[in-house]
């Protein structure tokens, strides 16, 4: 067990939501999710909005207190006590480089804040040196340190967010849709920055995105979520080349391809309907109402993840063998 950097077992995160006067119900945002991440590797987490990706990321860092399940980091149970120390090793980069940085703080203060919190320098000079090092690490330079976040473009702000996460020298970063708000040309710059930092610093990432192309590009393995559960997990190439879950297959098929000839000739599976409300998760397999392969058993029993090929797990009664 202690082999993995991060080990998540049966993680559950339920939120009470009001449904009417004096009535409330459990919203099962994450419902029994298990996975692991090794040192220096990237696990990509994909799925449509509302499927629970952000909640998984936040629960890992104990920004929420999980309803159930366990999270271990280097074998140590993550709880209210241990997280205080572990925060130095587990960091997060958010999607929106506009709202996640305080516009009234200089770049030096934004990046310096975690250094202050964790008391990672002895002299002011050392602090300043660290800030400049971090700026250079993410492709900015020391001229930038006296400027305010609002003076920067989206891509540059995301670099500042990454520098702030790196300030404490973490081993693991939850990157929650870090490039979703950026234009493609800038997106590519930031993806490269993530890849380069991983090579240089041996970082592990949970890389969350709804864009399967992006996730495939950066990840060694991918986990696909639907309505609070992981429905398929495999190597990034396996997921793309031979998806076993009908949901994964339709997700891949739905991505528009930037190639007119291919776009015109390929057969696209267009899923019917929409993701049901997480307050009304269908019985049995929750994908059943939208699934063209659904049979009787799908309505009766919830499929569990099963390993059907080495490293390739799927939760489906009728996986796509061909």
């Amino acid at each position, binding site marked *: 067990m202690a082999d993995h950097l991060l080990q998540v077992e049966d993680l559950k995160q339920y939120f009470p939501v009001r449904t009417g006067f004096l009535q409330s119900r459990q919203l099962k945002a994450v419902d029994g999710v298990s996975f692991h991440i090794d040192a220096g590797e990237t696990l990509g987490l994909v799925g449509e909005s509302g499927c629970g990706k952000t909640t998984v990321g936040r629960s890992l860092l104990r920004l929420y207190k999980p309803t159930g399940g366990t999270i271990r980091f280097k074998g140590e149970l993550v709880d209210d006590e241990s997280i205080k120390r572990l925060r130095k090793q587990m960091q997060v980069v958010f999607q929106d480089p506009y709202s996640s940085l305080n516009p009234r703080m200089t770049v030096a203060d934004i990046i310096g804040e975690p250094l202050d919190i964790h008391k990672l320098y002895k002299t002011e000079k050392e602090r300043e040196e660290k800030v400049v090092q971090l700026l250079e690490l993410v492709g900015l330079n020391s001229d930038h340190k006296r400027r305010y976040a609002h003076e920067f473009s989206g891509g540059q702000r995301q670099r500042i967010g990454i520098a702030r996460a790196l300030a404490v020298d973490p081993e693991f970063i939850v990157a929650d849709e870090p490039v979703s708000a950026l234009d493609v040309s800038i997106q590519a710059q930031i993806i490269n920055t993530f890849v380069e930092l991983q090579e240089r610093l041996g970082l592990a990432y949970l890389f969350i995105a709804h864009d399967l192309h992006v996730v495939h590009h950066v990840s060694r393995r991918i986990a696909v979520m639907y309505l609070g559960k992981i429905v398929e997990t495999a190597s990034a190439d396996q997921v793309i080349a031979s998806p076993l879950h009908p949901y994964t297959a339709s997700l891949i098929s*739905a991505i528009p391809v930037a190639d007119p000839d291919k776009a015109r000739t390929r057969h696209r599976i267009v899923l019917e309907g929409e993701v049901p409300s997480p307050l009304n998760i269908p019985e049995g397999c929750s994908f059943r109402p939208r699934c063209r392969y659904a049979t009787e058993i799908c309505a009766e029993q919830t499929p569990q993840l099963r390993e059907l090929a080495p490293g390739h797990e799927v939760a489906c009664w009728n996986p796509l063998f061909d």
Partner: protein
Amino acid sequence: MSQSPLLQVRNLHTIFPTESGEVRAVNGINFSLARGKVLGIVGESGSGKSVTAYSILRILDNPGKITQGSVLFEEEDLVRLSPGEMRHVRGAKISIIFQDPMTSLNPVYTVGNQLSEAIRLHTRRNRQQARARALEMLTLVGVNEPEKRLKQYPYQLSGGMRQRVMIAMALACEPDILIADEPTTALDVTIQAQILELMQDLKEKLGMAIIMITHDLGVIAEMCDEIIVMYAGRVCERGTAEEIFYNPRHEYTKGLLRSIPKLETGKGRLMPIGGSPVDLLNLPEGCAFAARCDSAMKICLREQPEELRINEHHLASCWLNVKNQMEGGQEHG
């Protein structure tokens, strides 16, 4: 190509005078749209895609104004129409849908009310006829339980359903042109696929032309016959989808095509476009892309390239083409 285009935009300039200076959002663009075709406008955020659309429809936010150029539609220059005349064009002849349907749906009226109102504004239908047409439109755009939806408020619908309602509203008067400004950007891919399929379907049924605005080259490839690529309020190049994707002739387009991660290519580094977007308050003298262009020559920094015809289906504004053509010309001469 022989028949005259449905819409022709000529040397259009749109600016926003602001406190910090003149934002030159659209700087002399040219393009045309043929009847029944889908034209894509692609470019990064701030490149002037929306302002182009709003200029055509004359729905620019204050203090935006068109300073030069014309928008010819059915032999009339829309730029010169009175506000009253323009009102007859909007919705009836050219309509628009936005990324966020809530910007055009009124939260306090039911879907049915809003649809009927839109229909009655442009046609002679009475209340009952308008309601019948509203129902017909909702069915056409694939809204489930249309009778029930008519009585619902926008907030009671999902994002995908709202976009369908928007499309129903935009198409209720069977316009000649539908402008879709990032219609699927806020939606999940599976819902995006549904909406794109619906738009293709409706185009076949109703025969309108579409201007599809998006930053997503995938959406462009799936939907468009012709493409214009914009950068800093100018058209870098325009042509058929095949030409733009398989024979790009502007360094910005090439960079864009290289920078998207593709499933079939391997891992590792992507090839991004370096640098940051341009400042429209301080547009350079030469080509706006020159500062980020690896192949820039001296002239690129000083003078704006003219639009050059690459072939029958393709025009591009890049000095490299001029250079290549002259060198090629000398060889042959």
